[in-house]
């Protein structure tokens, strides 16, 4: 048989399709699905949402027209209705028309887009600057003019991730130290990274920029209302890319100032702390905590190593001469994921974590490292 066949009546398959699409529609209607952007809280965020809604509507209209015509044709110009094919195969007029009209639509879309882009690009007249640095896998925030600086780590417990515990409401979108920002002020972000590419993205603020080691990017936001806004790292940065959330706590300017002074007090206390001499047990205790927050992501909660990252249990370095061990932790190993933790931890924490590594996980080096052993 070489001649074509036609399918005159609604076959089993189309009927199935109809059924399933009805199911999908009713499913969508019943559940509380997020179908669009999160609620924006900055002027730029509102503009982006409007722009997005505009272009999506244009696209849907185009889609409906084009496929309205196509499906009409499929319905009306089918051989089974006994039609004879027409012979035409071109029309210069038509083709010019449907080159020019889309072009004009594009121009109409480009105008508001350009305006929004220009506005986003203008970081001048900012009232507060925050430096955002991406690390594998945490964020560091510096307020250069306030002299405040801290790391922000994922706060979701390991047990929730491993399904051993019920997941909390803000599963994966919670951190130990959120970035605190005043509302109503134009905040300039200076974004960079320490190791690989990351991207700082908080949807409600309408900002996303790549964090690139060695370069800085700028962007700004002026938050309209106090609240907690959550985002995530948006550029693949290795194993725990999915575990690098951002939490912004927007507060009134007064609360912000209060927060700054509390931060300063705490920093002073921590600095005093770091010159203390602890006993071996205290060091190991402290080191264990540091290891869990800072090192476990790569070397495993029990020092067993993860994927390509070496294990600490039985490691040649952790069981070998002390200077090499101090060196790799403080200076890192360039070209690998092992960062220079001298720039991230204070001397006491470094001493503690090294002591812990040399005594924990069944390691036998057994020596104690005090903060003053850590090279400046």
């Amino acid at each position, binding site marked *: 048989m070489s001649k074509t066949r036609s399918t005159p009546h609604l076959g089993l398959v189309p009927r199935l399709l109809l059924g399933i699409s009805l199911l999908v529609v009713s499913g969508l209607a019943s559940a509380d699905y997020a179908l669009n952007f999160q609620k924006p809280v900055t002027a730029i965020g509102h503009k982006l949402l409007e722009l997005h809604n505009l272009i999506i509507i244009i696209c849907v209209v185009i889609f409906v027209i084009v496929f309205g015509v196509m499906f009409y044709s499929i319905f009306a110009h089918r051989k089974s209705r006994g039609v004879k094919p027409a012979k035409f195969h071109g029309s210069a007029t038509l083709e010019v028309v449907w080159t020019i009209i889309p072009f004009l639509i594009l121009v109409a879309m480009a105008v508001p887009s350009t305006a929004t882009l220009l506005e986003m690009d203008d970081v001048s007249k900012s009232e507060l600057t925050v430096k955002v640095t991406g690390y594998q896998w945490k964020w560091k925030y510096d307020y250069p003019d306030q002299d405040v600086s801290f790391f922000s780590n994922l706060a979701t417990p390991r047990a929730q991730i491993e*399904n051993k515990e019920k997941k909390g409401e803000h599963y994966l979108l919670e951190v130990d130290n959120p970035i605190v920002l005043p509302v109503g002020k134009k905040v300039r972000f200076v974004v960079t990274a320490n190791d690989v590419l990351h991207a700082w993205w908080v949807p409600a603020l309408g900002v996303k920029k790549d964090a690139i080691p060695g370069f800085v990017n700028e962007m700004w936001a002026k938050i309209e209302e106090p609240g907690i806004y959550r985002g995530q790292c948006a*550029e693949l940065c290795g194993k725990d890319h999915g575990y690098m959330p951002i939490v912004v706590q927007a507060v009134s300017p007064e609360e912000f100032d209060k927060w700054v002074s509390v931060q300063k007090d705490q920093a002073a206390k921590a600095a005093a702390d770091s010159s203390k001499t602890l006993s071996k047990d205290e060091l190991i205790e402290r080191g264990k905590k540091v290891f869990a927050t800072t090192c476990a992501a790569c070397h495993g909660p029990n020092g067993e190593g993860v994927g390509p990252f070496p294990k600490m249990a039985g490691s040649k370095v952790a069981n070998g001469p002390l200077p090499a061990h101090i060196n790799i932790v403080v200076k890192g190993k360039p070209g690998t994921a092992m960062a220079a933790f001298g720039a991230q931890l204070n001397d006491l924490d470094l001493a503690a974590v090294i002591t812990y590594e040399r005594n924990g996980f069944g390691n036998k080096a057994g020596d104690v490292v005090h903060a003053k052993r850590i090279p400046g």
Partner: protein
Amino acid sequence: MATAHHDEHPSGIMRWLTTTNHKDIGTLYLVFAFTMAIVGGIMSLVIRSELWQPGLQIVDPHFFNQMTTVHALVMIFGFVMPAFTGLANWQIPLMIGAPDMALPRMNNWSFWILPFAATLLMLSLFMPGGGPAGGWTLYPPLNVQQSGPGVDFTILSIHMLGISSILGSINIIATVLNMRAPGMTLMKMPMFAWGWFITAFLLIASLPVLAGAVTMLLTDRHFGTHFFDAAYGGDPVLFQHVFWFFGHPEVYILVLPAFGVFSTIIPTFARKPLFGYETMVYATASIAFLSFIVWAHHMYTVGMPLQGELFFMYATMLIAVPTGVKVFNWVSTMWRGAMTFETPMLWAIGGVFIFTIGGLSGLMLSITPADFQYHDTYFVVAHFHYVIIGGSVFGLFGAVSYWLPKWTGHMYNETLGKWHFWLTMIGFNLTFFPQHFLGLAGMPRRIPDYSLQFVEFNQWSTIGAFMTIAAQLIFFYYAMQSIRAGQKATSQVWEGAEGLEWTVPSPPPYHTFATPPKVK
């Protein structure tokens, strides 16, 4: 008509290992592509299974990233590109009345590089440190940092795949320019040959640039250069520019041959000539040209100077114009035709439909400020699966069902063909339509775990993925059936089909058009 030659060719396995015949090589390509599609499909199931619910269930994050990376590389370089090269091998000589490809021995070489390159890529998964885990875009510094030989295997594999595609493209260009039957001017050439001809130029202009990019990555990894290290004057973003100079043309490499397929199938089943043939050619050429000046729309968030962002936004938006012309011309071809809806036509219509959804979301992505929200979210994942699967993969299935009776000499089972189409169509939409919403609501791509508001849509998506893959068993079954047995196909096969390939018997003799046909 073809004169059958009774050439000696080795039998059994040696026939396939040493063949210089375009039909044999086409078959090899298609079989290879099918195998890789299954491999890449299984990897996508690993991804989708891990994403069935939040938390870590099946794989660890490092392996998840390897799956994402290798899934993409396998699908693009192992499945879609070779599959279309296979089609080109089978069809271009038949369609332009040539005895074979212009350089038959090199043709065999282009093919045989592929399995070896794929082996290299697969080996990487078993190396200490695992396979490449930094995304198919291989961005530094992450891919410089990753330890173990996995990334190096990938780089060398890409070099080999690149050589294969460049040689294949050279062959296609030489064939089209030099082997057309007398009387077949360029402007009488079938659209499928046109689509491939232009694609071949995209390939030879872009793949060497990719080779350069990954070479720099390799020397940064092992030979102490600092192309991507700011401390020594380099820049990670440099890699992105070079990569996307290749990467954007690459996406049209994936889709232009499929456009050619749509332009072949739709007139056949509308029983009406293609609307605006010449404009179709010019539109394809414009898309190809524009594709070289839009690459930075993949990197709006890297912090380019404002003028750059504007230029790349405008240029990218412009691509909608020639692509729109193509869509309108397909619709006009159907208009007042006398349509029937056999499997190939279903794929073509479904393909245009799905592709346009993806094209429109692409247009949304091209708007720089809006892309700041979409970038690196599932909205992008949804976009490109719509264009790639709607465009390339539907085009492929359309082409295979259209020409299968010609190749095997047997009709396939039309009912099974329709089932395959509808199940794939539904499964595909179920997989990827919800991903638009996930992206808009803020789910980043390339994550193995997600927060709780994304659960439902991810589950739709996972169900859809299993359904889509399961549907492919039907394809395998009906293709095998048509190879083995089935109703004899005539040489014409489809009532409305036109072109030289329908003048030779089904299946065609081993050598066709040894004496070139005359084209009016």
